[in-house]
């Protein structure tokens, strides 16, 4: 059996709000294998973003550990976490978060400069279907196009993990499906591990692994032997 690429072990995250302690995740545990397309499914406030943030090195658990490629990243210093994000992680956000003062291509190139073994940014732009919009600024692009730039930006550094937080949350139905198709194809063609967070249960059909979370804990986990490509999914 393959070694898991991500191991989340008894992760608890507590926030203090005033005098009250709130648990965003409570002893959450799961494992992810290399090359899997993972969907983390749960309603809002279930703690799914919290755990993604911890895998992505943006946050540390209060208790518990997160292992990536066998290394315990919970012990990393701030600088080590920055380097970890820089080298290993590609992020895609719900609201794209592109640099408004850089063109589409420049947004990609900006991140490329951080990586040791980057991919060719023109190739990536072609792959996400934006070869003809490279010199447009984000404000001149549609939401779907902006999200494609964000995906290109995440891919260009050739990350170990591609983390997507509600990537279709701000998009209309058809555009959302095209973005999911893009992620699905990337996973199939490059065998890159992708973790998608969503509250949309229909998306689960395209995943190898579905992790359902509720109230900060894993409710259930299932392996999907025959994932469906997104064009065959309706919701």
């Amino acid at each position, binding site marked *: 059996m393959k070694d898991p690429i991500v191991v989340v072990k008894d992760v608890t995250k507590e926030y203090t709000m005033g005098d009250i302690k709130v648990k965003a995740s409570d002893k959450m545990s799961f494992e992810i294998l290399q090359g899997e397309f993972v969907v983390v499914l749960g309603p809002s406030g279930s703690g799914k*973003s919290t755990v993604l*943030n911890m895998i*992505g090195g*943006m*946050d540390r658990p209060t208790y518990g550990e997160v292992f990536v490629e066998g290394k315990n990243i919970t012990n990393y210093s701030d*600088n080590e976490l*920055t*380097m970890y*994000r*820089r*080298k290993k*992680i590609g*992020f895609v*956000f719900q*609201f794209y*978060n*592109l*640099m*408004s*003062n*850089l*063109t589409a291509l*420049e947004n990609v*190139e*900006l*991140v490329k*400069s*951080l990586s040791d073994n980057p991919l060719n940014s023109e190739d990536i732009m072609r792959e996400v279907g934006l070869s003809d919009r490279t010199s447009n*600024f*984000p*404000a*001149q692009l549609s939401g779907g196009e902006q999200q494609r730039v964000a995906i290109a*930006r995440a891919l260009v*550094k050739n990350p170990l993990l591609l983390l997507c937080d509600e990537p279709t949350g701000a998009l209309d139905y058809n555009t959302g499906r095209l973005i999911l198709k893009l992620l699905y194809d990337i996973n199939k063609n490059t065998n890159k591990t992708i973790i998608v967070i969503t509250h949309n249960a229909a998306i689960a059909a395209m995943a190898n692994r579905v992790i359902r979370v509720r109230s900060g804990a894993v409710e259930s986990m299932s392996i999907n032997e025959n994932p469906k490509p997104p064009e065959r999914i309706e919701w």
Partner: protein
Amino acid sequence: MNILFRNLLRDIKKSKGQFISILIIVILGVTFYTAINSAFKNLSNSSDKYYEEYRLADIWVDLYKAPIGIQEKVKSIPNVETATVRIVNDASISISEENATLRFITLPDVKRDIVNDIVIKSGRYFSEGDTNQCLLDEDFFKANELNLGEYIYPIINGNKVKLKIVGCVKSPEFVYTLKDSSEIMADNKKFGIIYIKQSFGEAIFDFNGSINNISIQIAKGSDVKNVKDDVEKALKNYGVKSVIDREEQTSSKMISEEIKQLKSMGGTFPVIFFMVASVIIYIMMGRMVENQRTQIGVLKAIGFTNMQVLSYYMSYSAIIALVGSFLGSILGTYMGVGMTKLYNKYFNLPLADIKIYGEFVIPAFILTLIFCLFAGYSSCKSIFKIMPSESMRQKSPESGRKIIIEKIDIIWRNTSYLGKIIIRNLFRYKKRAILTSFGVIFSSAILLVALSMSDSMNFMIDQQYGNIQNYDIKVKFSKLINIDELNNIKNITHVKDLEPVLETGVEISNGWKNKNVGFTALVKDPKMYKVEDKNGNEISIPKNGILISEKLANTLGVKVNDSVNIKFYFPGKEKKEMVIKGIVVQYLGLSTYTSMDNLNSILGEGMIASSAVLKLDNINFENEVKDKLKDMPAVTSVESKTDSLNALLSTMGAMKASVGVYIILAGILLIAVLYNIAAINIFERQRELATLKVLGFNNNEVKKLIFNENYIITVFGMIIGLPFGKWLGAYLMASSSTDAYTIPYVVEFKTYIIAIIITLIFTAITNLTLMKKIKSLDMIEVLKNKE
């Protein structure tokens, strides 16, 4: 509105740093406004009162000799209210092991009201009997640590005279004790006023029944010029040396100029601060309205009127204005008292009561309110245009744009992506960047002016004491002497060289323009007392004709080869027409130069001198030579270059302290402006900064985005600010130049470098305070939220 107000206070609390930094600028503006203006008011009121109470003369007449009875003749001149006659003569004295000059002035034997009266500060007026009683001016008395009842021994006409100090006094005539207008700073140890009985003065100065000075008060509302002319005509036969009014009298001129400068400073300086505060308020509130447009929409949707919402936002600037002017007035009032005292250290006006002038508080309040509310209104008026429905919809993101620099491929290709973000952002918010650089422009200009003051002083000292007055000692004589008599000075051991100088006063005129100036005759090729042109090249003394200073040429409206009329005060010498042969630089005093040969041919008195300049073979023997000189007959004063230089250098210390104050002010200006704008910048771009952090940029790289923008604005501001500072400095120097001195404005190259470095340090300090804001930026919190 009450609850809305509470909301506003919470907003302020959230951005304390910005609120406080604007407040500081407003407070400084109000503080300076109240302090400078109340110091001005205190000083001008006390000097007016002092002049009035002790009858400062309106006209002073200096003449060779006239009988005492002339007083009645003068009083009978139309519009002359009253007149006092006296003897005024300089003599030297050895005191505190140094050589000093005393100006003897005679007073009535028995006290009565006179023009240019005295105030007795301690001791008493002359008593009957003893002839050799004297009153000393307070500054000299204190500087030389003298005591009442002590004896002093001035040398008059070569004789040591024993005088008993019976009183210590002050006079409105010598508020500022300067020997003549060629001196910049009073040296109270080296020059003082001494008052003796009229009868005693007549005896020791050989003035039996005569006087040489008349002080005149004129009738209120009469024209000084006319009275001066009448007086001069009436006294024509007594050898009038000079007739001057208050505008020309050294002490009153110095004071009125100093007070005038204070007044103009009180007008301009605070306005800089108000302007900068307005700029920050304008930008900050503009962004506040922009960022809270949803809240504004909600308020309007609930049913608040435009005016209510507008006044809600404008009360932010009103709070700044009110709190700022309240605190500023309190501070300014205290500082005004301090400033008055500080200025008065150097004037010694009798300040019985330093008043707190409440009347400056109201204009300060109004002025601040106008500035703040105007800035607030200009930035908030867009509230009217916000439609509730629209404001609650998401705003389309602002677009980046290609900019001109991108066309220059070679630059653009070599710019990093972070660099591109910075440059495009600056261009996107052009207006903001330009307004921010205003702070830097003012700040670097103030800095350069402050730092360059010592350059100018050093340059002047170098020129004046290194090139122009290249002598070691200057001796002045009580009368004109034949230059053959100078041989016994030349024969003093260690005197290497000697040049005679004739200095006298003349009236120079061109048409109706005229001026009382010094007239200096020098030997043919002077080695120790030279004249130079503007570029520091030596000018030879013309055989006939005269050289005049640039300032005098401007005053008279003449140029080289023009003719001017010169009136000598030697009895029987008529006006002479003379040709201007050249323009010279002159830093101290206002004088004209000619050769001794030329003067001889005009006056026909032979080769005469009123003073001599000496060079020693070894400067270590300076005091020895000075001692020998002051024992010689006819010597009234002996001054060495070291003395005048030291007096000048000691005043530079005070100047350096004020440079420190200006540097701090410049720093506060720059830091407050940059901090504010950068805080807005960070707040608005927190999403972008957080994204960069998530992408794997570390804090150092992220901070560059904000910090480098500050550096770019700083550099841009300096490019305008430093030349502006140079212009401002030249303007200030030119406007502060008087007949007594003209300081050339010089900025050394190293001063630019220092100004640049200090400005960059201010920016670095600002960046340091912003570091915390960037470090504490919470990636998750920021990215979770929709814009």
